[in-house]
């Protein structure tokens, strides 16, 4: 009974636009109170929920995103990629996907990448003959690869919540599925551009971009993922340290190479990244009250047992979870989805004996698809605002990209080694 009140109160608050952390915290508190437990469990869990060292990687990676956003790395990457692929049909759209993937190797959140790429490519894509709705779809879908390509905030949360999964291991496991997802999105983008004759319409090229000239500028940005992942790979840095090194590397580029940053920018970056991290971390903190009450009330095991007991088999259960997660992913961001659902999902994975790193990757892929599935797609919200189109207008285009990413997901489900090969050879 208390279990129903717990979930009922949560859902009602959630649909009433109460901040999700507060909805989790209050529903949990209500259940603790109804069960006659001490309310002292609330502050204890909130404090213990965030006072964890691995979580420091979150504010630091958010800060990396802010720093590189302001240095103007995205613009220089677009110039370099444009110089490489030329300006034919679908070329600029492909460039924006590739750039989103590289930015994904620097920043850890989908909407942030959507904003960074959208601001840089939208105007030139309009001039090059792409419809606005198609641009918004491309950027929103491309940015979804971000939470797969390391660093990823969703992966950090997963590793903190799931015992036996380390941050470096799941970072490595996300690499190839992320690249695969990016390639999968490029396929329908190119086909649509060819059929509908999108792109390649820019008559005057304002300044001739040479591959070498743009490369010299872009190499600094291209090196950032190498600093982050390489540093972690050779064991020089923990994930948090890798993030901080990337912050200082970004500041160096911004101050001395591109000369785009001022001290005022640094202050604003710190505030912006602080608030963005807080918005994530307060959900983590208050969700621990919710998680504590669900586990003390024992409402989780019956649900997990019920799903396993449906007798759908391995693939049937994955398909069921896939549908459920994509629907939830349409409403919620990845972090919140993990915080609410992992306590149910992990026992299910364990009862099938699934590899938890692989399981984390496919869950994140599902969430990534949800991030650009209308009507509540967080990435599309950002890219549509930049392209100034209503989200409904993206539907005819974005369905093909959703479909393509599903194919990529199905491949990772069928061939777990796409995810697990890299962490294995790296020895995590």
């Amino acid at each position: 009974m208390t279990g129903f009140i717990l979930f009922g109160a949560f859902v009602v608050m959630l649909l009433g636009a109460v901040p999700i952390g507060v909805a989790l915290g209050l529903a949990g508190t209500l259940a603790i109170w109804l069960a006659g437990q001490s309310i002292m469990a609330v502050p204890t869990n909130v404090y213990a929920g965030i006072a964890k060292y691995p979580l420091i990687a979150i504010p630091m990676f958010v800060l990396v995103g802010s720093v590189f956003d302001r240095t103007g790395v995205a613009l220089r990457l677009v110039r370099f990629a444009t110089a490489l692929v030329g300006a034919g049909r679908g070329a600029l759209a492909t460039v924006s996907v590739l750039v989103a993937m590289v930015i994904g190797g620097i920043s850890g959140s989908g909407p942030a990448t959507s904003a960074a790429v959208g601001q840089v490519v939208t105007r030139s894509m309009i001039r090059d003959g792409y419809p606005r709705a198609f641009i918004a779809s491309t950027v929103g879908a491309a940015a979804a690869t971000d939470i797969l390509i390391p660093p990823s905030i969703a992966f950090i949360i997963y590793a903190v919540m799931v015992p036996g999964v380390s941050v470096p291991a799941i970072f490595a496991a996300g690499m190839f599925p992320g690249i695969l997802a990016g390639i999968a999105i490029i396929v329908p983008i190119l086909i649509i551009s060819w059929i509908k004759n999108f792109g390649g319409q820019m008559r005057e090229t304002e300044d001739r971009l040479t591959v070498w000239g743009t490369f010299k500028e872009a190499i600094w940005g291209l090196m950032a993922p190498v600093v982050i992942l390489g540093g972690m790979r050779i064991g020089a840095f923990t994930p948090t340290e890798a993030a901080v090194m990337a912050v200082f590397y970004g500041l160096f580029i911004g101050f001395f190479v591109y000369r785009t940053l001022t001290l005022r920018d640094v202050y604003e970056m710190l505030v912006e990244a602080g608030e963005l991290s807080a918005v994530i971390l307060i959900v983590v903190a208050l969700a621990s009250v919710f998680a504590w009450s669900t586990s003390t009330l024992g409402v989780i095991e019956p649900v997990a047992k019920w799903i396993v007991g449906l007798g759908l088999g391995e693939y049937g259960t994955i398909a069921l979870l896939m549908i459920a997660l994509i629907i939830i992913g349409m409403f919620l961001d990845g972090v919140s989805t993990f915080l609410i659902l992992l306590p149910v999902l992990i026992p299910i994975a364990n009862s099938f004996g699934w590899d938890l790193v692989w399981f984390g990757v496919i869950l994140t892929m599902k969430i990534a698809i949800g991030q650009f599935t209308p009507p509540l797609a967080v990435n599309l919200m950002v890219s549509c605002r930049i392209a100034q189109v209503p989200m409904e207008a993206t539907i005819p285009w974005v369905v093909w990209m959703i479909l393509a990413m599903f194919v990529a997901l199905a491949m990772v489900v069928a061939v777990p080694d796409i995810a697990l090969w890299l962490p294995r050879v790296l020895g995590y």
Partner: protein
Amino acid sequence: MPLKIEEVLIAAAMAGMALITFGNVVVRYLTSVSFAFTEEYSVVLMVVVTMLGTSLAVAAGRHIRIGYFVDLQRPEIRARFEIGAMALVIVCFGILFVYGARLTWDEYRFEVLSPGLGHPQWLYTGMLPLLALAVVGRALGRIIRFARGEQA
């Protein structure tokens, strides 16, 4: 109350976390001394950033929430939902203030020491109720603005 107070403190705490971690790496590679116990400070700074940033985001309405269904309503109804949501924010952080203060008091009374550096734990835990108060204040301010019919 200007939002500047939170902003300055957040910037300082974020810079503090980055510098502690950076210092840690430098010291580890230049000397054989381990600096790892400073993790304790980073963790507290993260708690501070979380609470202060929550306060900023409450004032500006930037928390993660499902606005879809409420945004379909007329503006007057929407304002009512917003006021209701802020009232729940006050309840939530009010609980954190009252019971967090009691937790801090218990740690003070029983002289609990932090595991890493052996500092009094209540100095760390105390950040929670103290800054929960800031969140409550920002939520109140937002309710007042909505009740006056201002678009926040």
